[in-house]
């Protein structure tokens, strides 16, 4: 069985008395997109920096493709492309010079691939970084992360500053990348993007992993929202006997239910009272994530350990 792209074992980082990351254990299988989420200050960036070897764990270990990061820093870095959350580039340097420098630093790279990245992301390579907008600087950062076709891409807020057209192009690029068997470790606050792209999700809060599961499993467990409008007020007690039904709102003929149990009994009751309008939708992962973000951290992660 191939080694996981990333394997964290009881990884911890303490600054003085602050526990930035506590006993984080996580395996990211090779191939696919793994989303790593959490509110600001939850320990995401610290964890990412320990995976990259930029920061040293207080205890525990981080491995990339089976190699201990601290013991094999240069070898590990050969497999990695990194886009930092707060990208900083040399202000006077043009994109062209940046690419030349990093291309040489990586050794042999496929120039055709680099050119294709520049073309499809419409990157401005002739002007100094300081003259570029945030979005255009971000595109330089994306090219720097992808240009050497690494096996593992660690991307922190990659679409920050990109316009919708470029966000779409970037998503295509990510799909192609995982299609080639490479791995993407994605940190993002764009929860829609995560839901569309990621196979697995881990949420970190207060330095601990509180969710580690597949997007499919998480979506499957989400309640549906049923909304209906009636000519008259509906008695709330009609739903009292149904399991997994919670009334969110019932005013002026407008009824909103959260249904985590069977849907058919609910629909039968609604149909019997001649609704004027009816909609049923599954909650998005946004709602789940926001709930998780606001709940106190629990040392035991929910979902499945993989």
């Amino acid at each position, binding site marked *: 069985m191939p080694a996981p792209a990333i394997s964290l074992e009881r990884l911890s980082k303490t600054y003085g008395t602050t526990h930035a990351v506590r006993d984080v254990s996580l395996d990211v299988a090779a191939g696919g997109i793994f989303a790593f989420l959490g509110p600001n200050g939850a320990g995401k960036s610290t964890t990412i*920096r320990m995976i*990259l*070897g*930029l*920061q*040293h764990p207080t205890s525990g270990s981080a491995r990339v493709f089976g190699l201990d990061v601290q013991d094999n*820093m*240069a*070898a590990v*870095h*050969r497999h*990695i492309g*990194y886009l*930092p959350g*707060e*990208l*900083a*580039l*040399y202000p*006077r340097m043009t994109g062209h010079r940046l690419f030349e*420098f*990093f291309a*040489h*630093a*990586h*050794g042999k790279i496929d120039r055709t691939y680099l050119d294709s990245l520049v073309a499809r992301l419409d990157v401005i390579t002739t002007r100094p970084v300081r003259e570029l907008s945030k979005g255009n600087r971000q595109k330089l950062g994306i090219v*720097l992360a992808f240009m050497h076709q690494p096996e593992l891409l660690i991307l922190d807020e990659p679409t920050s500053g990109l316009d919708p057209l470029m966000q779409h192009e970037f998503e295509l690029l990510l799909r192609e990348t995982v299609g080639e068997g490479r791995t993407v470790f994605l940190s993002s606050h764009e929860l829609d993007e995560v839901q569309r792209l990621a196979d697995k999700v881990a949420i970190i809060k207060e330095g601990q992993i509180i969710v580690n599961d597949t997007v499919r499993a998480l979506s499957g467990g989400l309640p549906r929202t049923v909304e209906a409008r009636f000519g008259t007020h509906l008695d709330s007690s009609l739903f009292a006997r149904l399991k997994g039904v919670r009334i969110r709102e019932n005013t002026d003929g407008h009824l909103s239910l959260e249904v985590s149990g069977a849907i058919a009994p609910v629909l039968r009751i609604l149909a019997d009272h001649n609704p004027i309008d009816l909609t049923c939708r599954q909650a998005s992962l946004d709602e789940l994530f926001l709930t998780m973000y606001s709940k106190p951290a629990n040392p035991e992660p929910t979902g499945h350990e993989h």
Partner: protein
Amino acid sequence: MSTRFLSLDLALRRRLLIAYSAGMALYTLVVVVLYPQFKNTTSLDALTRGNSAAAALFGLTGSLTSPSGWLNANIYANFLPLILLLLTIGYGASAVAGQDEDGTLALLAVLPVPRKALILQKAAALAVQTVIFSAVVCAFTLVGRSFQIAIPPSRIVATAGTACLLGVDFGLLALSLGAATGRKGLSIGITTATAAASYLLSSLAPVIHWLQPARYLSLLYWSIGDSQLAKGPTVADFLVLAAVGIALLWTSVAAFQRLDLH
């Protein structure tokens, strides 16, 4: 070994290095060209004759109007170390701590290159900048031979060598403090304070009896503060400055291996 990080930092510092070197070159040229005008101005010597305290304030020993006294009073005892240390402490503090604070170091640190190689190239970039700056000052001091500054070229070159080592040492001190703490301001602050203390020790020790043994702690004393321009630097001067440099380089490498980057 590839020198790409060395080249990168030299490119980033190019404008600053040119400005510092050109400014110092012009200043040195003016000082040496003016020497014949002041060579026989005995009133200048009267300022410090029999007044070692006044001489100490200028970092001087001996006559002000002798070639070495003139160069010491106007360049080597004050402006040269000041500008040189501005250049090297500035780079030493920014090469790791400054670049980490502005976020550019992380992209370099995730390249497939050991950290040791990265910081050794930064130390080499420091050395190259210091050599260029010192060579420019040396070249324009040598021009002084056409203006009655009769100091043997070998002594001027050798003193440029000890000045260069002084710059490298303080640059490496700033580099190692930056690598140990990740804080540019702290690195500049401590190194500048050390340089100021070094200057005071070297210049005041000749007139304050109890300070005399402490002058050996001053890197300025081993570089340009012990009349190197008049007498020529000794092998001991070079050895002390080189040994301090090697110790600081080792400290920088060890500290950088342990530094948490952003």
